[in-house]
């Protein structure tokens, strides 16, 4: 915590804090909520650009930045879903999750270094699509959760859309990640818990896409299943390596 406050002397940390405060104001449900949200999103984006300029590479090589980017991608996906459905509750219920990601990012220790194996265009393309897809899956979870609560079919449609977008972008991320892995380590697959869970999440989303076509899963069963997609993706990133041991990616 002390380290986090010490880091506040840097502009990017101030920007992150300002974005978090604006997002928190959204939860207050005032008539300016949308303005706060968009201002928060803008400052959050500026922070990402500044970190990149400061480091000299796409700032997605350490947990501090990746968690912040998941929050950014989630906020962007929520904004898209809100514009399509005109349902303010998506922002209201989704923004606390964005704030949570920002604070976890804020408390994660910064390293500001990159391994030569990660300093690759393929890796950066993989990271942007991977963490971008997580935001879409998160927005799908929020829409699905709201559908389960109020049964507004439009929200279930939005969940399906966000999960399909997330799944396809996740597929792009896995392909790009495999290319990077092949270029860096000479293989596109390793037998580790991390790789198994990445594939497991892809299969789970595939299972959801097929289940939604089945009459017996229409409605709340498919929505409940889709809501869990984000949990699978998050567990792959945060849980595997901590709850389930997995060796770090290396030769």
């Amino acid at each position, binding site marked *: 915590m002390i380290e986090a406050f010490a880091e506040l002397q840097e502009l990017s940390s101030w920007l992150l804090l300002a974005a978090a405060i604006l997002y928190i104001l959204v939860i207050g449900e005032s008539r300016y909520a949308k303005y706060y949200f968009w201002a928060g999103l803008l400052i959050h984006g500026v922070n990402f650009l500044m970190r990149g300029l400061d480091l000299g590479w796409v700032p997605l090589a350490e947990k501090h930045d990746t968690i912040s980017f998941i929050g950014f991608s989630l906020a962007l996906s929520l904004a898209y879903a809100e514009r399509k459905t005109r349902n303010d509750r998506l922002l209201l219920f989704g923004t606390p999750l964005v704030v949570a990601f920002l604070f976890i990012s804020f408390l994660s220790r910064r390293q500001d270094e990159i391994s030569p194996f990660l300093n690759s265009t393929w890796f950066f393309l993989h990271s942007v699509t991977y963490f971008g897809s997580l935001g879409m899956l998160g927005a799908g979870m929020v829409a699905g959760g709201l559908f389960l609560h109020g049964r507004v079919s439009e929200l279930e449609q939005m969940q399906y859309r966000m999960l399909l977008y997330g799944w396809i972008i996740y*597929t792009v991320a896995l392909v790009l990640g495999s290319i990077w892995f092949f270029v*860096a380590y000479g293989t596109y697959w390793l037998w*580790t818990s991390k790789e198994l*869970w990445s594939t497991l999440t892809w299969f789970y989303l*595939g299972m959801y896409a097929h289940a939604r076509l089945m009459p017996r899963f229409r409605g709340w069963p498919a929505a409940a299943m889709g809501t869990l997609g984000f949990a699978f993706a998050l567990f792959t990133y945060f849980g595997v390596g901590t709850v389930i*041991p997995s060796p770090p990616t290396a030769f």
Partner: protein
Amino acid sequence: MLNTLYRFLVSLSTVFWSFALLLGLMLVGSLMLPENLAFFSGIDDEPLFRWLLANAEITKVWWIWALVAGIAWLGLSTVLCTLDFLRTRLSRVRFLLRVTPQVMHLGVLFVMLGHLLTGSYGFKTDYMVRKGDPIEPLENIRLTLENLDLTLDELGLAADWRADLRLEEQGQSVTRQIRPAGPVYFGGLGFYFKSVAMEEEPVAVLRICRDPGAPWALAGGILLIMGGTAFLYARFRKSEA
């Protein structure tokens, strides 16, 4: 009887439970791998099937065999689903919406084929290479390290490294730079700069690989992306138009 089996294989319900089975097996695997770290330590160093046959402790590897069988089952179901699709008449309006999932299915099959070839015929080995001291990783291929640049960090550890490799095969010779995540491909082999061993003078540790499955897996990945993107367009953009 055959018709019943065919209907069973192409049904969505079969696909759903096949996915569920694979999820269960991967979950078991993700727990078994760290539990038996020493046993599985060599699994990535040689083709999968060669490793599986040499390490036949069924209590530890049953889930990999089951995973291979499950993926083969899903592959069969995918092929039959695509054949079933080809038998149906298509209306022009829903053409894209119905074709694109089949392109994704084809992508999955290509990825499966890639893994099968990699797991059967891949080749991977490490070499310590000294500057000016040639090696022959395969018959007819000769490799010489011509130059080695090393960047050290504040602690004196290697932070970045690159080298010039001269490769010769049947009179043909090329010199290319190699660095981490910047391999060289020559004569059907991939040369990867793994690390630098600090001996009396720095020694390059190179990994040399051949992976016949990689192009198929890449083609599958491209088909998955193309099919998925076109499906999203057909499903959402057209419905809004």
